[in-house]
């Protein structure tokens, strides 16, 4: 037992001496510590810069991807003249706005004319798709109420049709007023446009619903232009 205790004490004493012998000097410890901490801080700042640059990289990629997708869908929707119920319809309208924004005043008139035709086609298509097939019965089809959402959509498109047509006619008048060179051409274009619009309205499939006041207004306006 005493030998065991002596052994333990000897080992303990040796360990203590060993630690004293292998103890690093304070100057070294201090300089190494400072160096290590500085490196950790440098690393933190480098990491922050890398993180920031990565954030910019990802943001730029995301913007490019979103822009590419949006422009691609807009071009596709515009080129295919998608219907008002198509999921890409809003992209078509966006594309139209961009085309208007990038065009000269003369081109804008032509575009408004094209877009007026488009709105009219969209309304016609929407109404045609809504109408039930002809039913031979005593019940009048016109009694069937139009769903609210659809009616709102039709009204919106009619309003857009009116706006596009009137803008086209107003802009033509402005051009006639300020440009002598294109007066005759634009005046002829405007008359042709009105004839086309009236023809389109006339040739629309017969709807079960009462005519839109906006369409009636355009009819009157076009007749006025033709009389002039």
């Amino acid at each position, binding site marked *: 037992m005493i030998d065991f205790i002596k052994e333990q004490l000897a080992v303990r004493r*040796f360990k203590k001496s060993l630690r004293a012998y*292998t103890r690093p000097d304070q100057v070294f410890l201090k300089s*190494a510590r400072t160096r*290590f901490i500085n*490196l*950790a801080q440098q690393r933190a700042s480098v990491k922050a810069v890398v993180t920031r640059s990565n954030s910019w990289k990802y943001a730029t990629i995301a913007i490019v991807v979103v822009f590419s997708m949006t422009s691609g869908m807009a071009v596709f929707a515009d080129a295919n003249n998608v219907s008002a119920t198509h999921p890409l319809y809003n992209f078509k309208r966006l594309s139209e706005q961009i085309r208007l924004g990038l065009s000269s005043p003369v081109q804008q008139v032509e575009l408004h004319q094209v877009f007026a035709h488009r709105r009219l086609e969209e309304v016609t298509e929407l109404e045609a798709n809504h109408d039930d097939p002809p039913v031979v019965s005593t019940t009048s089809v016109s009694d069937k109420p139009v769903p609210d959402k659809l009616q709102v959509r039709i009204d919106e498109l009619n309003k857009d049709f009116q706006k596009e047509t009137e803008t086209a006619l107003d802009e033509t008048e402005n051009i006639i007023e300020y440009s002598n060179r294109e007066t005759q051409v634009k005046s002829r274009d405007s008359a042709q446009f009105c004839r086309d619009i009236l023809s389109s309205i006339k040739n629309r499939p017969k709807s079960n619903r009462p005519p839109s006041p906006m369409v009636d207004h355009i009819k009157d306006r076009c007749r006025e232009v033709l009389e002039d």
Partner: protein
Amino acid sequence: MAIKDQFNVLAEALQKGDSGSAEKIFDHFSKPIYAFFMARIRHKETAQDLTQEVFLKVIKNIEQFDRKSGNFTAWIWQIARNSAIDYFRHKKPSYLADLPYEGDNIIEEPIKSDESAKVREIMTIVEDFPPEEQELFQMHFVADMSYTDIAQITGKTESALRVAIHRLRKKLVPYLK
């Protein structure tokens, strides 16, 4: 399953660049790692260089440390162990500084106590032990590492280590008296 180490949290903070964690890690590991090198190489400047190298490697490779599956204490000691292995692999065959009584130790010799002389004597004796026992001596007696950490580094079980260290102690005792 890895044993959770209290230094894992500090390592994670160090990964994020926290200098406070760097201070705590250095304060805890610098002395035993230096002692480990000093006992193994027995040259003050080399031990200092290798100690600094270990902490440089810690900073350089801290991203590779996985807090969830790893044990930081075992990880840093593995770096120290590999540094010592690399040193012996690349060191020149004859190097004056590696001799037992070199450099500063020679100058300090007259004022060193008998205890220091005894320590050097034991270290010289340990040099003749098998490499595994030498490493155990450096890890357990010099660096004062826990059985758990030694087990993680050496890949042995804790019970096997206890037996091995008990045998090493028995082997050393006659020289300590």
